[in-house]
């Protein structure tokens, strides 16, 4: 919008020429000037300058609609995640035209959730999908095509019993591997064309934090502002695309440790313990979503995933324009994410806390016991390499 040339905004060509001499060529240049400056540069009187600004404004200003018009399209406002309780809390699913962030410690299931959403987006509308392509920008090489197909087949076995449908789903997910900040920025700037050519209905950026954190050392002065500006620009472009194409955008984020003086008061920690146990409750520091306070403003919805124990995990709705603060338990299975253990309703409240400071539980223990069909007899030391009487150490189930 702001790149619109003045010549196309309905301005007299003589005035356009005059302004061009002063390097004022686009609507952005003109609107950034004060009326006095416009008077000077365009050689016009005060009221003519105001009229000039108004004409340019009419050319640039967005349309006004009423909320009623949006309400009439309400069937189309959300993207269902197929997790029923989550959809119910979010009033239908992930809202379109907004950025939803999934933050959490490593291995908790963020990429699994993203892959599950990719499968859902390719499904036909009758099954709750978007019947569209998916753009998956992968910065951590966490995307696995095999896992995608495994999720598809396990979640919808009847639909995907026909092999062509599986291939079609796989063909609709467009993967872009970007490994540096600059590449991600370039990709996001070109995303408009990619969305049109792939006919995408969902954009996933997994993850926004990894490239930024490895390239910006925030202890150096100036880097924090630079990083915030970069993230702000990315967020603005993503929101613009989300709005124009009416699609949901999902980004994933990592975690960081907050030290010392930002620990919230102990009374609130104990209150939180009843629903979500605090992580570093000793007062030494605690874990929260990365990228800071400014980034927390940029996302519209924040879902935090965290550990409860070695098997069970939780999704916390930390920030949402429609949903209250809520906690849902889930596990990662073959078919992706499965909500379970949510029988009691008391996990929902009108409380919550600053989504930028919400403590996140990290993995405290790992179950090192042998899995799979292994006899519990002690191993005989293998004298020859041909006998494989020992146990198999690979995870067969999960």
């Amino acid at each position, binding site marked *: 919008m702001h790149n619109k040339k003045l010549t196309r905004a309905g301005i007299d060509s003589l005035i356009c020429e005059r302004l061009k001499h002063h390097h004022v060529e686009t609507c952005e240049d003109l609107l*950034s000037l004060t009326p006095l400056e416009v*008077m000077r540069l365009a050689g016009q009187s005060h009221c003519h300058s105001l009229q000039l600004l108004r004409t340019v404004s009419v050319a640039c200003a967005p349309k*006004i609609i009423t909320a009623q018009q949006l309400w009439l399209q309400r069937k189309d406002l959300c993207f269902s995640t197929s997790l029923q309780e989550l959809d119910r809390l979010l009033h239908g699913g992930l809202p379109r035209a907004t950025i939803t962030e999934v933050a959490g410690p490593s291995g908790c299931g963020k990429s699994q959730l993203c892959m599950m959403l990719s499968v859902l987006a390719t499904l036909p509308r009758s099954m709750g999908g978007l019947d569209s392509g998916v753009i998956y920008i992968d910065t951590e090489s966490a995307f696995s095509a095999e896992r995608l197909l495994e999720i598809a087949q396990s979640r919808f076995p009847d639909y995907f019993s026909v092999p062509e449908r599986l291939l079609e789903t796989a063909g609709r997910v467009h993967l872009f591997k970007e490994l540096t900040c600059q590449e991600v920025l370039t990709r996001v700037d070109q995303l408009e064309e990619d969305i049109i050519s792939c006919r995408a209905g969902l954009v996933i950026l997994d993850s926004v934090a990894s490239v930024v954190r490895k390239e910006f050392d925030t202890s150096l002065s100036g880097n924090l502002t630079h990083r915030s500006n970069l993230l702000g620009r990315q967020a603005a472009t993503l929101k613009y695309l989300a*709005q124009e194409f009416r699609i949901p955008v999902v980004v994933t984020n990592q975690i960081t440790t907050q030290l010392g003086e930002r620990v919230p008061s102990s009374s609130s920690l104990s209150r939180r313990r009843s629903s979500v146990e605090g992580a570093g409750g000793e007062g030494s520091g605690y874990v929260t979503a990365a990228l800071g*306070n400014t980034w927390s403003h940029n996302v519209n919805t924040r879902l935090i995933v965290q550990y409860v124990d070695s098997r069970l995990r939780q999704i916390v709705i930390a920030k949402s324009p429609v949903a209250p603060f809520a906690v849902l338990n889930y596990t990662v299975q073959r078919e992706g994410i499965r909500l379970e253990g949510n029988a009691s309703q008391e996990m929902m409240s*009108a409380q919550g806390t600053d989504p930028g400071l919400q403590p996140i539980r990290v993995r405290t223990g790992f179950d090192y016991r042998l899995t799979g069909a292994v006899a519990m007899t002690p191993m005989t030391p293998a004298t020859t390499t041909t006998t494989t009487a020992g146990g198999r150490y690979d995870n067969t189930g999960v």
Partner: protein
Amino acid sequence: MHRTIASLPFAPSVKMKLTRAGFDTCADLKDLRPLQLCKEAGVSQEEALEVLQTLRSDDGVGVVSHVGVASVVRGGLTALQLLQKEHALGDIITFCSALDSALGGGVPVGKTTEVCGAPGVGKTQLCLQLAVDVQIPVCFGGRGGQVLYIDTEGSFLVQRAADMAQAAVEHCRLVTQDDEQKAALKDFTVENILSRLSLVRCHDYVELLAHCYLLPDLLTKHSEVQLVVIDSIAFPFRHDFDDFSQRTRLLNGLAQQFIQLATEHNVAVVLTNQMTTKVWNGQSKLIPALGESWGHAATQRLILHWEGTQRLASIYKSPSQMEATVPYRITEDGFRDMAPPPFSTALPTSSGPTRSDSQSQQSKRPRMEPRPSS
């Protein structure tokens, strides 16, 4: 009369020709005819006519702009007239009676209010609540007006607005007593509320600036609009600017425009701001974004913040109200008090006694619980 030519709002070329022809002040140009001016200064006939017409209309208001005494001169107001005007304009309630009392009745119409807060604390929720509350009919204690919602962040979700509208309609239904209210309630439905909420989505600061230039005409055309919400003013200005001085200049220009809009068109302007981290003496604090100079922009400033899991609203800056901090919560019905206030017929106490007293005599204020029929 002694105003110099250079200070007049004409095109620079015209001013140059006039000064070169020997005219220095307005007094020199008095009593001239257009054709005469045309020949003497070498300007075109239209320009000469424009100059003389501007001078003639300037004469009437010129005196007021130079002289400071307002009351006896045309165009000024006495404090008494201002008091009466403010009473007539009223406030927009927030449905959180503690906050309404602290604000002296609610968000004032005719002034600019800024709401700052950490992410997720409820700024957008408050804006949505105000957008619904301004439409409550006058016989229920509302303003019966319409609202223009300028969204720069994409956080306006119509489902939430519909929920809040439904809750407000329910509330009014429960407190309906007389026929006038029953009649007003027929018009106060969720569909009507949503159709009177105009929404604009601005993606960057240029679209925001463009829209703000067009606001005066818009508000003149639609005089029923009583609330303009900009959510948020910070987002478009926080990442596109390398030149901070240009940003400050543009923001100051916008601040002036908003104040002008508020006073001339009798609307309440509500702006939302974000918080930024400031590292200071080794500690980091959250302060309102957009810099120190932006602090002067709005007439009133509210800061919403977390205290553990409790949300608090503080009046940070106000020319007429005391600094206060009140708790609130966000429920599925919207922005509400912490706990239902004690049921009483007493008026909410505030630091502006006369205003709320006379207001309550004129209109019925919605209560949190329905009055038992007696």
